[in-house]
């Protein structure tokens, strides 16, 4: 049997054992959504890091650097600095005022029906775009790295669902994530994240060590080698900025287009993280605000070290393997794929230090780590999306406020499991459908960050810190921010294949326009709401959320184990 497949099955086995153990601890809603609020600060830090260091960042960033040099590193910087926004403004107030979801915090001051529905809408939009990107990536990786798995499942996938042929690899990932979430809820998801974070850090440290060993731990000669790699189109070497963002070529709104694109990307990265529902959800799993704060610091330590290592991996792949050979021996007839830079580097280093078997083993190991990464991240996303659906929409809007019923804890957990299953099935289908239309994958992941910062962030910040903010403002930013972002992306470049040369909107990263629009919509909505008399209740309740958020007075307690 193929080595990569074996390691993949071992990883899957470990995660299923964790899920089985977690399933016995998942009966109540607090256990299902918030792991009984019993996760320690450092554990949550590892899990946040696990949620965050997706395959897009592990394989994607390493690949971007391997192909474009320095400019790929810009993502890494933004993704770490983002956590300062979370640490200073979001983490502790969220823990102090929330229960399970983002909407819990908003509906504190606002009318529950419109705000919970709007928050459910934006949460599903963010999670779905992020998840699709992950699953499409997972599908293509499995096809390249364990072709036997995909090929052996192929005969069973000879049917179509609503006009779309399901993809075997995507379906395997989707089914596994459904098992984790439905059976094990937040407990299983958290521990799968922790295991994955440890594996991923281990893999990155090992590869970085071997890269530096190759250069005798001499940074001078490492960088000499990097500067020897030249980009053909621009003539720049790989240590220099300007290869991915071609400054000084095109203009938009009278400003350098590449500069705008780069700043726009930065805005989405450092503001979007604070609005990602699956990250926010993690702050409800710890006992108190202090643990929430500690978990951010743990996460920052891990994420920062990891992203610095991405430069060793990316530059290592650029110098030792080279763009032309990135996929030469991994699979026959594969198109040059930047996602393969890290696996290919692993194979090269393994062969250099441990011979042919070593190369095979290291390649298999890194591939298994990448799969663990994808599985863990999609599980976290499924949990967030199903939380928005069942906790916010079904339990708190339909059952409580429209039908005026009481919903038992058992029913809530049951509905949560059913929605997790539906979210899983839907994403398997969507990923197979969107995946067929090519270049969308990388773009939809970026869209998630922009929606999070244009729709969710204004709603959260204003709810916590602006006294006059009201229901109208919250709905305006949640729905308007999401809609404007999706619209700008749709009329921008890059959405269609081949790339549209004269798009209606010039930027690929739309954050620089849609994030301010999200904030402005929140403000305009608030003033319109005041005219309509919606402000009174929200303003009175501000005193309460203000005190609670800052002091933790009356925060959701840690339930007694039983």
């Amino acid at each position, binding site marked *: 049997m193929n080595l990569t497949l074996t390691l993949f099955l071992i990883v899957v086995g470990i995660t299923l054992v964790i899920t089985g153990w977690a399933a016995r601890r998942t009966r109540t809603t607090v256990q299902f959504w918030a792991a009984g609020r019993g996760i320690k600060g450092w554990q949550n830090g590892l899990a946040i890091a696990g949620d965050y260091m997706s395959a897009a960042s592990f394989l994607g960033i390493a690949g971007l650097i391997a192909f474009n040099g320095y400019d790929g590193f810009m993502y890494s910087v933004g993704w770490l*600095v983002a956590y*300062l926004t979370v640490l200073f*403004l979001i983490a502790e107030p969220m823990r102090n005022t929330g229960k399970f979801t983002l909407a*819990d915090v908003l509906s*504190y001051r606002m009318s529950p029906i419109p705000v919970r529905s709007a928050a459910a809408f934006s949460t599903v939009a963010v999670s779905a775009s992020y998840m699709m990107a992950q699953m499409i990536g997972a599908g293509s990786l499995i096809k390249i790295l364990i072709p036997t798995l995909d090929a052996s499942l192929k005969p069973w996938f000879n049917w179509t669902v609503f006009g779309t042929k399901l993809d075997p690899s995507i379906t395997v990932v989707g089914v596994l994530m459904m098992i984790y979430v439905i059976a094990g809820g937040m407990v299983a998801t958290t521990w799968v994240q922790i295991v994955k974070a440890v594996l991923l850090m281990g893999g990155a440290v090992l590869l970085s060590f071997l890269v530096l060993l190759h250069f005798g731990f001499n940074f001078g000669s490492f960088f000499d080698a990097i500067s020897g790699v030249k980009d053909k189109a621009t003539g720049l070497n790989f240590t*220099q900025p300007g290869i991915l963002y071609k400054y000084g070529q095109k203009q938009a709104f009278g400003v350098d287009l590449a500069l705008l694109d780069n700043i726009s990307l930065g805005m989405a990265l450092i503001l979007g993280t604070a609005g990602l529902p699956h990250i926010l959800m993690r702050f409800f799993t710890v006992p108190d605000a202090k643990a929430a704060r500690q978990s951010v610091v743990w996460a920052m330590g891990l994420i920062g070290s990891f992203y610095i290592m991405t430069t060793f991996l990316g530059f290592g792949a650029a110098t030792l393997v080279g763009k032309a050979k990135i996929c030469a021996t991994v699979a026959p007839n594969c198109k040059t794929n930047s996602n393969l830079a890290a696996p290919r580097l692993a194979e090269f280093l393994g062969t250099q230090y441990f011979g042919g078997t070593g190369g095979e083993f290291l390649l298999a190991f890194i591939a298994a780590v990448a799969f663990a990464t994808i599985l863990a991240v999609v599980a976290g996303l499924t949990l967030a999306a199903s939380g928005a659906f069942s906790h916010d929409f079904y339990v*708190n809007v339909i059952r409580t406020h429209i039908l005026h019923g009481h919903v038992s804890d058992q029913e809530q957990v049951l509905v949560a499991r059913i929605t997790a299953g539906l979210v899983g099935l839907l994403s398997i289908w969507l990923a197979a459908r969107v995946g067929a239309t090519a270049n969308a994958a990388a773009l939809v992941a970026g869209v998630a960050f922009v929606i999070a910062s244009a729709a969710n962030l204004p709603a959260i910040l204003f709810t916590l810190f602006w006294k006059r903010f009201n229901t109208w403002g919250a709905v305006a930013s949640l729905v308007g921010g999401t809609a404007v972002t999706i619209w700008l992306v749709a009329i921008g470049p890059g959405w269609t294949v081949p790339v549209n040369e004269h798009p209606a909107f010039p930027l690929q990263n739309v954050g620089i326009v849609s994030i301010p629009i999200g904030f402005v919509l929140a403000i305009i909505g608030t003033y319109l709401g005041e005219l309509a008399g919606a402000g009174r*209740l929200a303003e009175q309740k501000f005193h309460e959320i203000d005190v609670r958020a800052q002091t933790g007075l*009356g925060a959701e307690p840690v339930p007694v184990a039983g």
Partner: protein
Amino acid sequence: METDRPLPAQPLDRGPGEVRVAGVTSEDTAYWEGLEHTDEFRQLIRARMRFVLPATAFFLVYYFLLPLANGLAPGFMRTDVIGHINIAYLFALSQFVVAWLLAWFYIRKANNVFDRLAAAVRERAGRGRRAAP
């Protein structure tokens, strides 16, 4: 300066995120507004804001300097400093150091100052409730 006058009674001890009926009683508002106006709470907010606002402004400016410099002064950013390690790479690395340092300052401040001030507000709230009829 405000003396230690008892707070209005807290009408209902409800947890956050709980299902609640629309509408809010005047006692509710009076209780929380009373807490908001205590010296303890004002001290906490002042201490937090004095750290968080400048720190946030600083990291935003420092972060956006990097893409701005890369785009506006590419020649300068491509200058080699040590061997082939250039200003652009060192500036990007410094972002990590700055982020870690700011996080460390915040944690120290939060553990030493904010937690103590928040505990004082919670204690004041407890006293207020007892003092009420």
